[in-house]
């Protein structure tokens, strides 16, 4: 604390003005101000900064986009229920993912771990999780430009190595959509390839591939988390294309990918 013989520091005087000093120091500075014009002047100077801060910032509360914020909060999934069984739920995982997306942090730096799932969940559950996750993407999330072919090749090489595939940039190109990134996430302790695209007309789109032994199935369509999905599966992989484009377009795009790739 301040040397009694010298002028108190601005820190002490500020704490004095804010009523944050111990009682004895409050008294001591008040006494000093009585005796010393310098101290009184400095206190008077610093107290000019006693502005109506609370009033000034009150309108900023009104400026908050409350409807949007409430919708955001409502969109954060519940973290309970099934979580009890595994300690860490997939929802928690995808919730954590959401945070990294919003932060613009490379998702592939995040540790993405899914909890155990019952076998019966391995059908539509992964698509529900992907949909929930993709619903958090906005066009801003995918702002920027398509990476060069070399970069795409490198990204796809990682995907291919984890999923036993041989995808090329041409295989996964979507007509009229801008490729953004291919990366490996993990879902249910299995690698999950996520290839993102920006559809200039409707926003985020993604092609996701995971390992599956659910049998070969032709393309089906569904709607989850307000997005349209076309999904199919090969002997060892399940694939889904998800986006905000209309179901017909999603289906046609999915068909074109299905015709090009062997899974």
């Amino acid at each position, binding site marked *: 604390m301040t040397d009694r013989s010298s002028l108190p*520091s*601005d*820190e*002490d*005087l*500020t*704490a004095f*003005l804010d009523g*944050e000093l111990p009682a004895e120091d409050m008294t001591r500075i008040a006494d000093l101000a009585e005796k010393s014009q310098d101290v009184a002047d400095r206190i008077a*100077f*610093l*107290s*000019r*900064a006693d*502005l*109506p801060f*609370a*009033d*000034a*910032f*009150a*309108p*900023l*509360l*009104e*400026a*908050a*986009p*409350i409807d*949007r*914020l*409430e919708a*955001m*909060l409502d969109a*954060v999934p519940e*973290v*309970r229920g099934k*979580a*009890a069984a595994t*300690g*860490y739920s997939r929802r928690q995982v995808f*919730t*954590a993912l959401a*945070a990294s997306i*919003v*932060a*613009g*942090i490379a998702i*592939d*730096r995040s*540790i*993405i*771990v899914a909890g155990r799932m019952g076998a019966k969940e391995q059908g539509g559950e992964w698509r529900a999780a992907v949909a929930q996750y993709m619903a958090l993407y906005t066009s801003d999330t995918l702002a920027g430009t398509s990476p060069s072919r070399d970069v795409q090749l490198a990204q796809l090489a*990682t995907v291919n*190595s*984890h999923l036993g595939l041989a995808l090329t940039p041409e295989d996964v190109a979507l007509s009229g959509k801008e490729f953004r990134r291919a*990366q*490996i996430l*993990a879902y249910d*302790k299995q690698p999950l390839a996520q290839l993102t695209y920006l559809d200039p007309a409707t926003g985020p789109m993604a092609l996701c591939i995971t390992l599956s032994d659910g049998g070969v199935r032709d393309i089906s369509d569904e709607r989850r988390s307000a997005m349209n999905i076309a999904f199919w599966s090969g002997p060892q992989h399940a694939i889904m294309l998800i986006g905000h484009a209309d179901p017909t377009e999603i289906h046609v795009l999915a068909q074109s990918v299905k015709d090009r790739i062997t899974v």
Partner: protein
Amino acid sequence: MVTSSQPWSDYALGSEGTVRRATVPRQAIAREANIASHSTVRSGLRENLQRLWRYGFVLSRARDAADDLVQQTCVRALERADQFVEGTRLDRWLLTILHSIWLNEVRSRRVRLGQGLVPAEDILVHDGQHEMEMRLAAADVMNRVNALPEAQRAAVFLAYVEGMSYREVAEVLDIPIGTVMSRLAAARAKLAADTDGGE
């Protein structure tokens, strides 16, 4: 209640395809309490959305960043709901989370993007002629606070707008109380000098 406390960890795939070990905390205890704290945190978030957004805006000086910060705060707070200590101030806890997300995740990106100052007049969107004077006075104070360096701005906002004690400010900013004092003193000197010059 989970009967098995079998520790387990999972692999996670890094960007280079490396396999990393991730330790998963055991959550086998107090499930009901966790559920209670989740609903407490969720309702606390709902009540404080505007305040969180305001602090996000004060830190970032950008609407979209404030939106992002609130969203991430919601996600993080619900994730960590079981870390909230019942009986302590939930609003402070939420502001602490928001600040930490700003510091660790969002700020560097915003700084890289070179975000500029947003004049308060652009944010205050009130209608009505009679509010003009108050609005301008408010905008003046906001602009002056906005012009402070970030560290001082955050301390001033938390202490003088949110009305926190020095100790609470120190906790939210994760700095010693002495640092809070020096930031506030520097801010006061700057604001006082501006006031002096303007009169």
